[in-house]
């Protein structure tokens, strides 16, 4: 079955894409939404433009759809992008990186239903610690590119998800109930290397900005 991956460049969509390939499905295209709204309800925004470099190293075609980013536009533009993927690459299904978000998952389910496509959510309800441990075991090199929740701060930007990261986050989780996967919007990630990549991506420039209280973003540029 030919599949389109809803792709943000972060760990959840990249790991879901890898799982689809491991299960024997064809990754026909990546679909990325560039939202002009940094507070997007649906889409990951830090360093989103670098998905082009990730798509290149995976040698998978990329469909980019821009959106103004208010609630209704986002869904209409997402549907437009998925429809384009269906026509151009003959995809029969969509893969998402949804873990717990019923808001995100049910909206994508509705679009897939309307377009008569299968909808796969391979990380659905996955245990948070088990998931992060699998990422490390399967050689995913992932860094944090957005921080949006106390007590995380600017010093967490650029940190790699490794065992030490999991241990530190678990300690914080005991006191502050931070979601270990960041799916509650606590942090956003960017994948620099994984088994789907032909080579590791190298950062040659980064720009950090504060976007409000307890909120920092790191825009990276890839060689």
């Amino acid at each position, binding site marked *: 079955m030919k599949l389109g991956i809803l792709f943000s460049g972060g760990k959840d969509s990249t790991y879901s894409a890898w799982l689809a390939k491991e299960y024997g499905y064809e990754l026909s295209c990546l679909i990325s939404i560039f939202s002009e709204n940094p507070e997007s309800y649906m889409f990951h925004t830090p360093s989103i433009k670098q998905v082009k470099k990730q798509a290149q190293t995976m040698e998978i075609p990329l469909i980019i759809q821009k959106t103004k980013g208010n609630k209704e536009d986002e869904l209409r533009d997402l549907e437009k992008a998925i429809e384009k993927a269906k026509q151009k690459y003959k995809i029969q299904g969509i893969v998402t990186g949804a873990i717990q978000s019923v808001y995100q998952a049910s909206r994508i389910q509705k679009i897939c239903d309307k377009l008569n496509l299968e909808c796969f*959510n391979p990380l659905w309800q996955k245990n948070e610690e088990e998931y992060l441990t699998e990422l490390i075991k399967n050689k995913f090199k992932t860094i944090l590119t957005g921080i949006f929740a106390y007590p995380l701060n600017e010093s967490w930007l650029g940190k790699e998800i490794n065992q030490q990261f999991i241990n530190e986050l678990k300690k914080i989780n005991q006191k502050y109930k931070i979601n270990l996967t960041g799916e509650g919007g606590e942090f956003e990630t960017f994948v620099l290397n994984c088994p789907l990549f032909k080579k590791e991506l190298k950062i040659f420039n980064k720009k950090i900005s504060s976007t409000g209280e307890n909120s920092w973003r790191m825009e990276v540029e890839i060689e």
Partner: protein
Amino acid sequence: MILIINICKEKFHYLEFVKPIEDILKKEKIEYQTIYYKKITDKELLNKKLNKIIICGTSLKDNEYLENLDYFKWVNFPKLNKPILGICGGMQIISLIFGGILAENKKIGQIKIKFEKEFLNFKPSLKEVYLLHNYAVINKDFEVFADSQNLEIPQAIKHKTKPIYGVLFHPEVRNKELISYFCKEYF
């Protein structure tokens, strides 16, 4: 031991509709065995360690199980006599095996449903549940414990004389305690 029945046509859907249920059992340290519905034999059903059975759901696009109900005749075997919980597509299967009828009723997303009577330790109250289905089922041999408000769509049912339960919603999302209770308690 709990027998988990996978009805997914696409093997990739195991991760979405079966593994979350296995994870609940793992967390509760309950022994389980998972099997694809077309591979069930007397060996699994007559296993002396078998306590209960869960039939999982599947994706909106997957209705293959409805064309293969013959694989589920065992649900009504008197000699089986084990508690069964059918989730979504699993509820449709158990209802149809006992002569129920399907009604088109596509629903996607979270809604509140009203439990009129206690059901698998869910007290009478409103509960938020996650729905993902194309069909509801209606069967007079089953008592309705919860329905969608004002819609009269059965959301939680139990066979009038057998320990056979069905939920149209997905308890592995937001209502995991229902699955734990079904697996742990004796009834």
